[in-house]
C-alpha cells in the first residue's frame, strides 16, 4: 500500500532524510517514532506529495507518488499538525466544505461528527472548540470521505490523556474498517498501543523497524525479573534457573506480592540505539 525505497531529502546542504526504506501493508497501522527534528514531518510531507524528494522511490496506493491523480487523492486522508480549521465556521460547516469537495452526501456530516463525539457541538464555531475537540474535528474531516489511507501527523500531540484515549479508539475503529494508517508520534506508549509496525527515526535515518513487540524483544538484553516482596523490599533477579528456584521458594513462603519481567520499552530501545530520548525537544 505504501513503500519507500532508498529515499533521500536535503534542505540546502543539510541532509534531512537518508536512505529511508520501509513498506506498509493494507490495513496496517504504521508508526513513525522519533524526537522533534528527526524528520518525521518531512517524511510524511514527501509521502503525501506535499514535498519533492532528491532521490529514491515512494509508492502510495501501489503507485509512484508523483503519478497520483485527483481521484487517488480522494482515497487519502491527511491530518497534519499544522493544518487549520475555519475558525468562524461551525463544525458542521467546516465539514460541509469538504463533503462538497469529495462529493460526499451531507448526511455523512452528522454521522461523522457523531463518530468523533462532536455531534452536540455541530453548530458551535470552531473558534470556541477546545484543543481536543479541534483535533477530533480534524479527524472527522479526514474520516468523512472514508479514505483507504490515513496519514496522521502527531494526532495526539498536546492533548489530555482522556482525549488521547478517545482518539486512539477512533484510530483503531478505522483500522477495523480496513484503513491503512500512517502515524507519526514521539509518544512510545501510543505507538505500542496502536501500531502493528514501528520505525524508529533518528536524525533522518531509520535505526530500527518492525513490530513493537519484536523490536522490544530484540533489545531485551538484561532479561531480569523484578519481585516486590510483602516486606516492601524490591528484588531484581536474572532470567535463569537459579532465579526460578529462588522465586519458587519465596512464593512458598508467601513473601511475594508482585512479579514483573523487565523487558525494555520502545523508549529504552531508542535510547540504546541513539543515545537520545524520544521526548527530547
Amino acid at each position, binding site marked *: 500500500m505504501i513503500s519507500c525505497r532508498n529515499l533521500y531529502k536535503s534542505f540546502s546542504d543539510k541532509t534531512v532524510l537518508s536512505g529511508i526504506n520501509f513498506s506498509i501493508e493494507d490495513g496496517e497501522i504504521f508508526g513513525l517514532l522519533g524526537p522533534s527534528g528527526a524528520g518525521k514531518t518531512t517524511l510524511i510531507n514527501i509521502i503525501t506529495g*506535499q514535498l519533492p524528494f532528491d532521490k529514491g522511490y515512494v509508492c502510495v496506493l501501489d503507485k509512484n507518488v508523483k503519478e497520483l491523480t485527483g481521484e487517488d*487523492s480522494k482515497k487519502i486522508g*491527511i491530518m497534519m499538525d499544522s*493544518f487549520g480549521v475555519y*475558525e*468562524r465556521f461551525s463544525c458542521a460547516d467546516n465539514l460541509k466544505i469538504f463533503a462538497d*469537495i469529495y462529493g460526499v452526501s451531507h448526511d455523512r456530516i452528522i454521522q461523522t461528527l457523531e463518530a468523533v463525539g462532536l455531534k452536540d457541538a455541530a453548530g458551535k464555531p470552531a473558534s470556541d472548540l477546545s484543543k481536543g475537540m479541534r483535533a477530533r474535528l480534524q479527524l472527522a474531516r479526514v474520516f468523512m470521505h472514508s479514505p483507504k489511507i490515513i496519514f496522521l501527523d502527531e494526532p495526539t500531540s498536546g492533548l489530555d490523556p482522556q482525549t488521547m484515549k478517545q482518539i486512539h479508539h477512533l484510530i483503531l475503529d478505522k483500522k477495523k474498517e480496513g484503513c491503512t494508517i500512517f502515524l507519526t508520534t514521539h509518544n512510545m506508549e501510543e505507538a505500542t498501543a496502536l501500531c502493528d509496525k514501528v520505525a524508529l527515526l533518528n536524525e533522518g535515518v531509520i535505526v530500527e523497524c518492525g513490530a513493537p513487540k519484536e523490536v522490544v524483544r530484540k533489545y531485551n538484553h538484561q532479561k531480569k525479573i523484578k519481585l516486590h516482596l510483602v516486606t516492601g523490599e524490591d528484588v531484581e533477579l536474572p532470567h535463569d534457573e537459579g532465579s526460578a528456584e529462588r522465586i519458587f521458594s519465596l512464593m512458598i513462603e508467601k513473601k511475594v506480592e508482585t512479579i514483573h519481567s523487565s523487558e525494555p520499552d520502545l523508549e529504552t530501545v531508542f535510547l540504546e540505539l541513539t543515545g537520545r530520548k524520544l521526548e527530547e525537544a
Partner: protein
Amino acid sequence: MDNVSVIIKKQIRDTFKNKTVLIQFVMFPAMTLIMENAIKMDGMPVNFFTKLFSVMYIGMAPLTSAAAIISEEKEKNTLRVLLMANVKPWEYLLGISVYVWTLCMLGAAVMATGLPASDIPFYMMTMGLGFIISILAGACVGIYAKNQMVSTSLVMPVMMVLSFAPMLAMFNDKIEKVARFFYTQQIRVVFNTMSFDGVGGKGLLIIAVNACLALGLFFVTFRKNRL
C-alpha cells in the same frame, strides 16, 4: 459539485461572519447613498459622490478583500488543507475572484441607483472591468504575502494610491499628471462623460496597459510563489 463553486459557496457562507471583509464591500455603497441624499450644494456636478466613490471603491474593495481572504487562508493553513483535498490552485483563485467580483458588482449596483437608467449598463461594465484589474492586483499581494500582516502592509500603499490619487487629482495638477497613469484615474474621467470618448485612445491604452501589467504580475507572482 465542482471545486470553484465549493469555494464560492464557502466564501458566501463566510460573508457575514468576516466583518473586516464585509465592511470593504458595504462601506462605499453605503457612503454613496448617504452622501448623495444628504449633501446637495449649488454648482456640484450631478452624481458627484457616486462617481467619486465608485472610483475609490474600485481601488479599494476588490484589492483589499482578495488579498485579505487569500493571505488569511495561507496564515491559518486552511488553504493547504483545501489543496491537499485536491482543490487546484487555479480553482481556488478563480473561486475567490468570482466571489469578490460578484459582491463588488452588487455594491456597484447599489451605487448605480442614483444614476440615469441609460448610464447604468455602461457604468456597470466599466466598474466590472475596474474590479477585475484590482482583483488581479489583490491576488498578487495575497499570493506573495505569507500572512495577513504582510498582506495589509503591502495592500495599504497600493490601495491609497489607486483610490485617493483620482480624488486628489481633481484639486492638484501635479498629482493629476502622475495619477493619469493609473486605471482608476482614467475610469474617473470615463465616469465624467459616461463614455469612453472622454478618455480617448490614450486613456483606453492606459487602462489596457494597467490590466496587462496586473495580469503579468499575477502570473509572475503565482509562478514564483505558488499557493
